[in-house]
């Protein structure tokens, strides 16, 4: 007689297999366009990739609700991390956006302002050796493996970006979110007192 835990594990394995089978079905659009690398459906036991449009909508809603909890400072339950959605730092360059603190598995970013959306594959910044720059903010070691960048096509440098969301594949699941980004060059200057401290 299998225990409840074994039964649960069995169900999870079956679910994983079912999702893999669906992802491999010939009905799915081939990801062979030159701009996009092949879509890899990366199945996570805790967070299976959505398989239908309705699943995707529901996953976005559930994610947004959790992000809302993170923003309002809610504390997760003792058994979970539901309101500790990873937050990625982002900064804007002339024609690039650079990210820091990318969680593992964050391969894609979705840039959004209202109805305007652009999905981009993140280019992870190669590992760097320690140098003078690495001591900035005292986070030199951490910056090396979790930084990345993208080069937006739809969003000009002069356009603000309302949200940045990080996904495992181009179609989901959503795993982290980032800040609202002002147009390049429009960010407020740092206060003198702040410069003296940071």
């Amino acid at each position, binding site marked *: 007689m299998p225990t409840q835990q074994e039964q649960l594990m069995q169900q999870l394995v079956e679910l994983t297999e079912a999702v893999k089978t669906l992802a491999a079905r010939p009905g799915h659009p081939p990801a062979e366009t030159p701009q996009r690398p092949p879509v890899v459906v990366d199945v996570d036991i805790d967070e299976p990739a959505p398989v239908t449009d*309705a699943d995707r*909508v*529901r996953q*976005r*809603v*559930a*994610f*947004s*609700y*959790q*992000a*809302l*909890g*993170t*923003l*309002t*400072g*809610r*504390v997760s339950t003792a058994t*979970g991390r*539901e309101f500790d959605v990873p*937050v990625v*730092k982002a900064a804007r360059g002339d024609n690039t956006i650079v990210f820091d603190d990318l969680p593992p598995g964050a391969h894609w970013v*979705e840039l*959004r*302002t*209202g*109805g305007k*959306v652009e999905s981009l594959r993140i280019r992870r910044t190669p590992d760097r050796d320690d140098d003078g720059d690495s001591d900035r903010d005292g986070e030199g070691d951490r910056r090396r493996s979790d930084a990345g960048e993208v080069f937006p096509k739809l969003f000009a440098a002069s356009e603000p970006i*309302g*949200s*940045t*969301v990080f996904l495992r594949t181009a179609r989901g699941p*959503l795993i982290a*979110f*980032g*800040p*609202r980004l002002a147009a390049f060059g429009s960010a*407020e*200057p740092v*206060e*003198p*007192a*702040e410069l*003296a*401290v*940071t």
Partner: protein
Amino acid sequence: MFLSLAKLFEAAGGTREQVLLVHPAQLSRWLDEAWEGAALVPELPIGSTSTQAPFLGDPGIIGALNLPNQRFPALLAPSGIRPPEADRFTGAREQSTRRGVGLLWHHLIYAYLIESTGTFEVFAEVVRRLVIGETLGTLSLDGASWLRATEELFFRDPPLYSIAGIMSEARPLSRVTRRNAYWRMFGFDLPHALPDWPSGGGERRDWKAHVGSSANADFRPKWTELLRQVWLGLENFLNTSGANATDPSYIAFLCESIKDMLNNRRRGGLLAREEFVHVTVLSWFHLSLQTDTPIVRDLKAEATSPADRLSLIAQRVGMAPAARSRELFELAEKMSSVLRAIELGLFDDPTAAATLFDATTALGGEMRDLIDLWQSATGERVKDRPIGNPQVLSAQPVRLPSLPAVAEAGANGHSVR
């Protein structure tokens, strides 16, 4: 807001209660920074609709009420807060209010539910007794810090030109100002009466009349109906055969109705500042009760839940909190999150609304808790359905306009025959 700051302290390796030890001048300045930081809050990735901070009514309200970007020498000093150090002044702004994803305050319902427990009035009496005599004994040094900050921040006029400065000759009583906001947004008044002190003249008596017709009197029936429909969905979530009375379209309709109702009160940024201030006030007292903080220890009210701590503190000053304090404390953050999500339009279409009764998500679990707590706190039987009626009814109740008022009277006032 202080719950967000507490989380920042905790994330930086400190403890949540260290927020209560920060100097009130720094906390007061931090509130202005936090207000400005709300402009950083990103849109939520819910689909193609824009969700540009509609919780403010108009995102421009932040800049409209904010001090312009300061150049050196600054008119007002920054908060200088750097978690987790409670006793340090860095000379710079607290970082989360300047960069990153910003901070978002709870929905006004959070303030209403926490205040409904009686927390504010109990602590008002505690502060009064502590500053005028020794009936509550002496405080530890940390307790004295709490008392100083509490009195300075919430029981005197706020500093000039502070975002928290919503007391004036036009609205002299903070208690009445809060009731006014609750009444307008939800059509709810607090379950306890206004205390006799401080005096407030006409404002004390007539505040409901001054609101006029701009109160959302229909909020409660719609909210209860939404909970009832979500409960139907949760009950039938695992159904694979047989009747399923769940109606996601009707749930989406109810969510949209509530959204429109609440957003109506926020047009042009109305109530944004008031909500910020009221939530801030109540979050301070909520935070004071979340753990065995210095003031809780000094008042010998150590316990395992905020409701129990409040009850013990109330006993020390001869008062009694609301009978359902535990439920109200538990409800506050959950209901705040759900109403924020509704106002952001998260559940405006049936597919998205189905997430509310998806028992496998955190949201579905919260809705289940919320229904339990609401039923227990208010006595409204959300889960009950008529018994002895085997006929499966539509989830959507039918309410047609009734005719008698038209049929009974003619143009001259006599009955029509």
